[in-house]
């Protein structure tokens, strides 16, 4: 790209970021929830891809503001709860905590590093699943199984997806 073209592209991105980033913060979770609701109809194994969680982590890391992470996680979790059979608040509480911790972590680490992103994706997936299991047992009395090996495996898969997904969200 020539210098002129690069400047024009940067100018366009700067001009666009005024309205595009807030719009992306709404569109990305909607797309993630839609993916989670629709795609497993055809690819059953993709049920374990927690895109709403990854989107929560991404925007919490990006904004570096715990209050923002709390509210963002709470809203995404409540929408997820609305589309599940559980009472409202189960995913809400878990994603609230994820949003808070992700935003707090971003203040201390270089969250642009792919390896750090991979580790954070893995950690937050495991945290999400474990805390959801704890809440389901403690608050709802549901006897859900928590298979550690399976959760670790799905954590790795989600972490593997989160690196290119975060890169994609960086670019658009």
């Amino acid at each position: 790209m020539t210098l002129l073209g690069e400047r024009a592209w940067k100018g366009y991105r700067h001009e666009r970021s005024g309205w595009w980033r807030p719009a992306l913060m709404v569109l990305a979770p909607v797309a993630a929830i839609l993916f989670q609701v629709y795609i497993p109809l055809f690819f059953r194994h993709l049920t374990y891809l927690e895109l709403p969680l990854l989107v929560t982590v991404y925007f919490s890391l990006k904004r570096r503001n715990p209050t923002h992470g709390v509210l963002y996680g709470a809203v995404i979790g409540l929408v997820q709860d609305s589309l599940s059979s559980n009472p409202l608040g189960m995913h809400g509480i878990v994603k609230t905590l994820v949003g808070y911790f992700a935003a707090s972590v971003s203040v201390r680490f270089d969250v642009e590093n792919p390896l750090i992103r991979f580790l954070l994706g893995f950690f937050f997936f495991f945290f999400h699943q474990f805390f959801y299991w704890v809440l389901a047992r403690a608050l709802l009395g549901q006897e859900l199984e928590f298979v550690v090996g399976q959760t670790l495996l799905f954590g790795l898969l989600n972490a593997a997806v989160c690196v290119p997904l975060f890169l994609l969200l960086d670019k658009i």
Partner: protein
Amino acid sequence: MEFLLHRYRNLTVLLLVIIAQLLLLAYQVRGNQEARLIRIWAVTGVMPLAHALESLRAGTVGFIGNYVALVNVRQENAILKKEVGRLKLENHYLKSELGTAERGKALGVFQQTSQSRTIAARIIGTGSGSNSKVVFVDRGSASGVQRGMAVITQDGIVGKVLAAYPTASQVVLITDATFACGVVSQKNRVLGTLKGQGHSITSVDHVQNEEKVEVGEWFFTSGDDRVFPKGLPVGQVKIARQGKLLQEIYLAPSGLEQGLEEVLIVLEGMHQPVPDGPQQPQALHLLPAPPQEPGQEPDANRRGLTTDADRLIERYRRIGAAQKHTFGEGAPGTRPPDFNVNPDAAAHAAPTRTPVPPPKP
């Protein structure tokens, strides 16, 4: 105080949001009520998008399918025209045959099988969350769907309507950990409660160790739950073993085996008896045996007699015919036909043996 709140603003917001959600949870769990408004917003916001995606997918698949089908369509058309002419002739013949021979039988089958009033619905989405076993269908309260209605397929029960929204309904599947319904076994009419396990296998609870349940046995709905009409297939027993107090029985749900794309929502259920015979997963239609060639020896296998029992019955029938004996007649003590004779030889010799009347006391 203000200083503290300002200094720990993030933590305060976190605590407030979590406490608010805990209160919301407590309100729903303790009062057994739900925050329906939030759900309506979410479902009304997301489900039209899922519906549009599904329509787009179905339209694209249909378009591509139609385009592929157009290849060689002219050649196929000529072949099909010839075929239609031949089939029309056959159809006239078969209609007359069906009208006379099958009408009574078809009517009998129809009378025995009670029909519930149902509405077809298409699955347009699954529940959010990896632990969720719910799906969304494209029929809602506008189509007469109400909360608690049964959802079935031709293979068995699928779930029940958890919530009906104007344009879509949420269906909890029988594999969900919160699902339960009344079931009864086919052979010994053992009553139990079907419960979801959160994965592909369901369990039947509350069955005493003394009651007899076999592996491979079918379970049907009992109708006790007032959701599912009695007599719908539920699944086949995969594991049945003695427990400490109650049996441990696990079923493979038959309604979910073929995957879910379209389902029936039971608007008005009609109870029906639990069938006695073995449950067939799908009705198998068999053509009648082809006609016998002139001059060909009658062959038992060609008439559809494939087992030893079938061949034995056929042999006895021929022995009875050769000796002019009608099975099922005659008082106890009358002389039976001679089963040791060769029925073919006896038929050629035209035996005249008749059953001897029993000696008078």
